[in-house]
């Protein structure tokens, strides 16, 4: 077990390192650099050369990458190219906001997803299942910005119940984000509920058809204890991976929702930083998001090992 964890951690570090190299290369490959982004129409001649010298952009790419890596290993994430603010502060605030939004979406979506998924599987092919499944497919296929816009139109413009756009500063205390955070959290919950719900439903259906469940029925175990003690523990295992991926997505990849609702999170920061060619910020965010993905996947795998005794013996035997 221990060897497994250590091996996974080392692989994870290698992944994060590779990701940072690829992201650096990708942003470098884009036309223009931080100076053409700041100066726009003025990006010519001497002024452009001065800007580049000031920001260190006249050095070759590998040298700048090496310097950044050195800085990170020392714990210095650097300063933002525009405005020269320390990155740790900027990214820290945005990360906190993304965590808050992700947390709210999970709080809304997870109970709903599991509850509806289990209920749909138990009532398979009856009206509850049909309604829930169709609703899930609709929520998954309609693009998030469409559902977001519709919700804003209904709840903000027509009914006036909730504010449509988030107008709070990025570094405000987390309590200030309510009630403006509700609509974005609902939209995110809609999308993630659909995915998790369908996974839960299909794995429940598969387990319900399994031989040991049939054995329990034949032995006379009543419905509720049968579902709780025999079906659920087995059916919910695959859901762990989906939930893990969803959490990782919520924390790093909800750019569209953040843009539509003007939410000051990590996604919007990344997009702004890329169009400003602010490499230090982009690299830091890439680092955080890839580390999150690696960590969450590792946690999911470990949780699965813990929850599923069958996997455990195989692994301990192998190591």
């Amino acid at each position, binding site marked *: 077990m221990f060897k497994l964890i250590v091996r996974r951690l080392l692989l994870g570090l290698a992944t994060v390192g590779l990701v940072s190299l690829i992201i650096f290369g990708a942003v470098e490959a884009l036309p223009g650099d931080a100076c053409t*982004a700041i100066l726009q129409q003025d990006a010519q001649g001497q002024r452009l050369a001065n800007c580049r010298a000031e920001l260190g952009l006249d050095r070759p790419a590998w040298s700048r990458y090496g310097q950044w890596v050195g800085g990170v290993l020392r714990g210095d994430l650097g300063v933002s190219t525009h*405005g020269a603010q320390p990155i740790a502060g900027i990214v820290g605030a945005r990360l906190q906001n993304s965590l808050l939004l992700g947390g709210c979406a999970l709080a809304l979506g997870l109970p709903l997803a599991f509850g509806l998924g289990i209920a749909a599987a138990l009532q398979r092919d009856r009206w509850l299942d049909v309604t829930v499944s169709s609703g899930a497919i609709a929520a998954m296929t309609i693009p998030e910005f469409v559902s977001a816009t519709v919700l804003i139109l209904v709840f903000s413009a027509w009914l006036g119940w909730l504010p*449509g*756009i988030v*107008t709070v*500063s990025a570094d405000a205390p987390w309590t200030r984000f309510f009630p403006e955070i509700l609509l974005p959290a609902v939209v995110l919950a809609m999308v993630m509920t659909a995915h998790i719900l369908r996974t839960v439903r299909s794995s429940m259906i598969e387990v319900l058809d399994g031989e040991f469940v049939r054995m329990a029925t034949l032995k006379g175990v009543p419905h509720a204890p049968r579902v709780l003690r025999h079906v659920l523990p087995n059916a919910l295992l695959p859901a762990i991976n989906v939930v893990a991926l969803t959490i990782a997505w919520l924390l790093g990849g909800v750019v569209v929702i953040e843009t539509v609702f003007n939410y000051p999170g990590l996604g919007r920061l990344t997009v702004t930083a890329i169009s*400003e060619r602010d490499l230090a910020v982009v690299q830091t965010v890439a680092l955080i998001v890839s580390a999150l993905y690696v960590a969450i996947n590792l946690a999911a795998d470990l949780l699965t090992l813990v929850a599923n005794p069958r996997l455990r013996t195989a692994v301990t035997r192998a190591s």
Partner: protein
Amino acid sequence: MNKFSGVLAALLLGVAVTAVAQPKGTFRQAHEVGFGTASDMDPISRGRVFHVTEKVMSRLVRPGLDGKPAPDLAVSWSANANATEWTFKLREGVRFHNGKPFTAADAAYSLKRVQDPKLDSPARAAIGMVSRIDAVDPTTLKLTLSAPFADLPLILTDYRLMVIPEGSGDTIKSTGIGTGPFKVEKFDAQGTSVLVANTDYYDGAPGVARMEIIGIPDAQARFQALLGKQIDMMPGLTAQQKTLLDRMGGFTLQEIPTGNWRGIVLHTGMKPFDDVRVRRAVRLAVDRKAMLGLAAGGAGTVGCDTPVGPRDQYRSTRTCAQDIAAAKALLAQAGYPNGLDMEINVATLEAVWPAMAEAFQQQVAAAGIRVKIVTVPTDGYWSNVWMKRPVTMTRWNDRPADSALNEVYRSGMKWNESGFKDAKFDAMLDGARSELNFERRRARYVEAQDYLWENGGTIVGFHVNLLVGAASRVKNLDAVENFSIRWHKITVD
């Protein structure tokens, strides 16, 4: 009984008057956060958030509602016989928000700062002709010019030429101290900045007690904030958004002609556009009115390739129509009897460009000009495509006629996008600048614009109308372009 009711009436009137005079309510506006983390309150820096600086600071001269220069911190001005020395009489009794009295020294400091090569402000070119700035006494400012310039007051209405306290250059970007109708309470470019009323403002206390300037980068999100009543005003609506607001009700809409224009540049230094006949032919083949209808839903004004705005006092009133036959004849004369092939570079940087390019392509096809539309990335458009390829798209913001003609068409200017080098044209501009008589000066500027119609390389498609939407609770919003709005006159219900 009569005495009592008389006293009561007087008391109520007094209460009502004081109630009306007090600023009340909050007005909310959104800004683009165009400069992200580099946004600040320094009026001359590249990252200035003008939505804040225009309300907390004042200029020497402001654009009046009719477009002519009106007094702001300067109450009157006069020039010497050949317009090389200008004297400005300044307003007395004005204080900055920190209590310091405003004097000519502050005005001189602010203008000198704009000219400082170390600060490298984009506004430097605006007052490039000023060679000496003297604070003659606390209420008199004298500007000496390197060449005669009859329209100096108009130049000083530039929204970047705000007056800041003497010596505050290093701190102004975060303090925002000025003489304007509002004071900075909190500045957060990416979140919400809060401004409070300055009840000591020289033109009377503002109508609203508080203004919130909210940072919303996405245009669609800004529109949604307007619909959801989270902001009170949004300029720059599209025609579709205007229709939606019309139908929803609860909003007032303004359509304001501005000097912002969108165009197509034919570079006069690159083949085949170095031949004036080819340029003239291409420009004759365009139907600008149709292009305006297709690209901007008719919300604009067309002219004859003059960059001068429709409400500008110097605009040429010449009209011109599409003339395919003349275009074909000119092309044949220039050695292209079978027509011309060209590539036009378009990005989605500006919403109307793609539609303009397609309209252009269809219109000039009748004259045998075959246009291929090449889409280029928005990122890096200004550094890699504009001014570097033979045919590109362009956009310009509102400027006084002199700036519009000089910055874009004078030989050797940095942003002379069409590479136009014509000594005769430069002489026309110099002649106009030194002419003190308004009618004669106007005639010279018109002559210069007509010269551009004959010889220039830029197709000025149209000047856009600004569509402004405001919630009905907002009253007394001047129906003029942004930098002429008197923010202290606005009231909210």
